[in-house]
């Protein structure tokens, strides 16, 4: 499938906005995970603004596609999408990590359009399997459940229990996406706990496997299309997306020190200006640069 240039440009603009809003909310709340939000920006853009069937006015619509962000610490990317797609009113993102606002990790109770509560890694794929089984029972053949996992996250045995069961139940309505950004919280994947040969693992657990460059929008869109329409062969599909942790800001790229780290206002401003330059947009800094920070810098640093 060849995509029109225009469509790709539109989606890349969304990826840019997802990154911007992520920095805005993490800097404002002084808490959050930039690296893992950035590595899925293209994937989230492609899902929310092209692939997934969604209606912000009917967030529970039966025929919708479902997304479980199993690596729930990347919640800023999700909240950004929900705001950009109209599930949340403008500026909701500044309620990130506020009491009564958007939970630090995704939580069903925080906002419409969030399908599962998370935080502990490794649990989302099981929830996705449950939804997929439920959709089957409701005779809803069209909807798909997407589940985004981290590469470190798939150390968790719960993932493999879920993977085995998805294959056993022929759930080709489940599409797993592994954000293979090569880094975990405290080091590189190959060093801390090697997951290779990762494609073989999913294949041996009974899945179709597609490997892509997760920052190449055309590859992302095509893989999602293939997973939904071509690989509907009774096997669930896993997309192994090769990505870069922190992609888009030079100091954060491939740098696990930016796994969890809230930039101060000045740094946030610098990051956002860098982002605009990278994307060839008019330079635009941090919107709250001049607001006095009243919050504890919590996870800050590491």
């Amino acid at each position, binding site marked *: 499938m060849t995509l029109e240039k225009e469509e790709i440009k539109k989606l890349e603009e969304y990826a840019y906005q997802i990154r911007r809003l992520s920095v805005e909310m993490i800097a404002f709340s002084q808490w959050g995970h930039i690296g893992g939000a950035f590595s899925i920006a293209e994937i989230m853009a492609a899902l929310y603004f092209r692939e997934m069937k969604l209606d912000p006015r009917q967030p529970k619509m039966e025929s919708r596609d479902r997304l479980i962000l199993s690596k729930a610490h990347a919640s800023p990317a999700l909240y950004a999408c929900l705001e950009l797609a109209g599930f949340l009113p403008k500026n909701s993102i500044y309620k990130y990590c506020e009491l009564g606002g958007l939970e630090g990790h995704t*939580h*069903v*109770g925080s906002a419409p359009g969030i*399908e*599962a*509560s*998370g*935080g*502990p890694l490794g*649990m*989302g*794929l*099981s*929830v*996705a*399997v*449950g*939804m*997929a*089984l*439920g*959709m089957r*029972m*409701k005779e809803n053949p069209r909807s798909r*459940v997407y589940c985004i996992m981290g590469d470190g996250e798939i150390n968790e*045995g*719960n993932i493999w*229990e*879920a993977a*085995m*069961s998805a294959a*056993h139940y022929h759930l080709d309505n489940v599409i797993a996406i592994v954000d293979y950004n090569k880094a975990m919280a405290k080091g590189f994947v190959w060093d801390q706990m090697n997951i290779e040969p990762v494609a073989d693992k999913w294949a041996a657990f009974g899945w179709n496997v597609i490997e892509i460059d997760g920052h190449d929008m055309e590859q992302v869109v095509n893989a999602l299309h293939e997973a939904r329409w071509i690989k509907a062969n009774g096997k669930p599909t896993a997309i192994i997306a090769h990505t870069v942790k922190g992609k888009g800001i030079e100091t954060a790229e491939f740098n696990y020190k930016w796994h969890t780290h809230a930039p101060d206002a000045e740094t946030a401003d610098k990051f956002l200006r860098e982002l605009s330059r990278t994307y060839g947009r008019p330079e635009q800094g941090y919107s709250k640069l001049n607001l006095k920070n009243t919050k504890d810098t919590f996870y800050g640093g590491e």
Partner: protein
Amino acid sequence: MAANSVEKDMRDAFGATLVELGHKHKNLIFLDADLHTSTKASYFKKAFPDRFIQVGIAEQNLFGISAGLASEGFIPMPSTFAVFASRRALDQIAISICFPKLNVIIPGSYVGIPTSRAGGSHNSIEDIAIMRAMPNMKVADPLCNNDLSAIMRTALETGGPVYFRITRYDVPEFFSDSHSFEWGKGITMREGSDITLFGTGVMTWKAMQTAEALEKKGISAEVIHLASIKPIDRELILKSVSKTGCAVTVENASTSGGFGDAVLEVISENHPVRVSKIGVVDSFIESGGIEELFSHYKMQPEHILAAATRMIQLTT
């Protein structure tokens, strides 16, 4: 209230009630982790094969899948032994189920001492403490078959997350078929004035036997059955101890954080009286015969009686 002499395995009542509820609630789905003929969920499987899901020996997945089903509008009942329900997938239960307050009903099979020869790894004693500590979770422990059926019916009506216990122990039937269960409501099984014996689960039976033995000694014991551990019947507890002035709690579980502590909490803040807790004291239950174990861990009527007598003596 007199005990009916017919004793029947609680698991059969579980299976039969499941089928009844399956007819009533078309969206009830049973999930098994390779134990359905032990738990007797096999009755449900036979009646509703399309609403029975086998997940294999994978309890984390069992509860995760249940969360997914619940968010699709089904009422999943993920089932395994109580030790695994409470210890093997607790993060999943806490965050995938309890945090979003999903309608998941969790039966914990084979609890406490009567799990007998299977030994320390299988005899569930911390499940009350653990489940009670989960925000949003309701917890119940039935005395006998009709109590269990009533709890199951109410659980389906009022919605989850709910955890209830099933004991493999032959207990006489104390209630009629039309017995009903309400969250936060206890039952006065027997009135008395010198001490209150608060029981939950099958231990209320042992409390009843104790009350009879106490009566022979001229001591009048009130027996209150609290199948609903969370929420708990604060009013009934306080009314009773206001009258009797001391109490013993009895549970087929560890005394750390469980039923006894739930009762203590109510009493201590509002009407402090002397209370002794009967249950397993910080110990794994090793393999053995059922009554032999009840004796070894000092949970027989004679031990309840000794505790009651001590409480009364120290109080007056």
